């Protein structure tokens, strides 16, 4: 028997679960890093030097990723709260998951454009 035939293949709920874990894990580790970089504020010159890195194009792409993770985790968290507290309010679990993915993508595209704009204009 191949491993794939015994592998659990869930529906949208399984993907929501996996993505919720991954995005939560990533945001938490960014938070740990963020505590350290903000602590440099006691030495403003050093803070500005380190902070300038965040304007770099690679770090801007990272910030777009952070926004996507935050948006997915927020909206899917809202979906979980609905499922747990108001189960009768949800007619179709799948369409709610589709809405979470759609809003996450749409807001990431808009926010991502604003974050990347200085790069498109050739400033970074």
């Amino acid at each position: 028997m191949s491993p794939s035939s015994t592998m659990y293949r869930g529906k949208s709920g399984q993907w929501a679960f996996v993505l919720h874990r991954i995005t939560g894990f990533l945001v938490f580790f960014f938070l740990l890093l963020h505590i350290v970089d903000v602590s440099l504020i006691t030495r403003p010159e050093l803070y500005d030097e380190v902070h300038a890195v965040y304007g770099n194009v690679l770090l801007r792409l990272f910030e777009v990723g952070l926004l996507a993770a935050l948006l997915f985790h927020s909206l899917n968290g809202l979906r979980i709260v609905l499922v747990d507290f108001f189960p009768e309010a949800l007619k179709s679990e799948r369409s709610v998951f589709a809405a979470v993915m759609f809003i996450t993508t749409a807001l990431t595209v808009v926010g991502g454009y604003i974050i990347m704009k200085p790069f498109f204009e050739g400033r970074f």
Partner: protein
Amino acid sequence: MAVDTEPSRTRPAGPHTDRRPRQNFETWSWFFMRVSGLVLIFLALLHFSITHILNDVAETDARFVAQRWDNPMWRVFDWALLALAMLHGLNGLRWIIDDYVRVPGKRAAVKAVLYTVTGALFAYGTFTIVSYSPA
């Protein structure tokens, strides 16, 4: 009377305990994740909007922080975000460790590292926000 049908060893006496199951730590941990999550949606997305959407990230330099933290309300906001996000993330990682680290000794060790690092960085972040005074 309830006393006749419900033996006291399974249902402790009391005005509110006769119909509800007992609330243990994991029940509160589940509830905390939902409540803190709802608050964090507001705090985290507002914080991200201010630092990356309404202002460009390149503009949020030391002077920007000095102006912002001149208002104690923003320090309260930032500290609330720090505290809730750390607790929410800590509890989430605790669940992840319980799911994937199955050997008891290893699990205890990984949790010890998580609690130590999270506790230390939470104290460090709190110190940064509270002790800051512009030069």
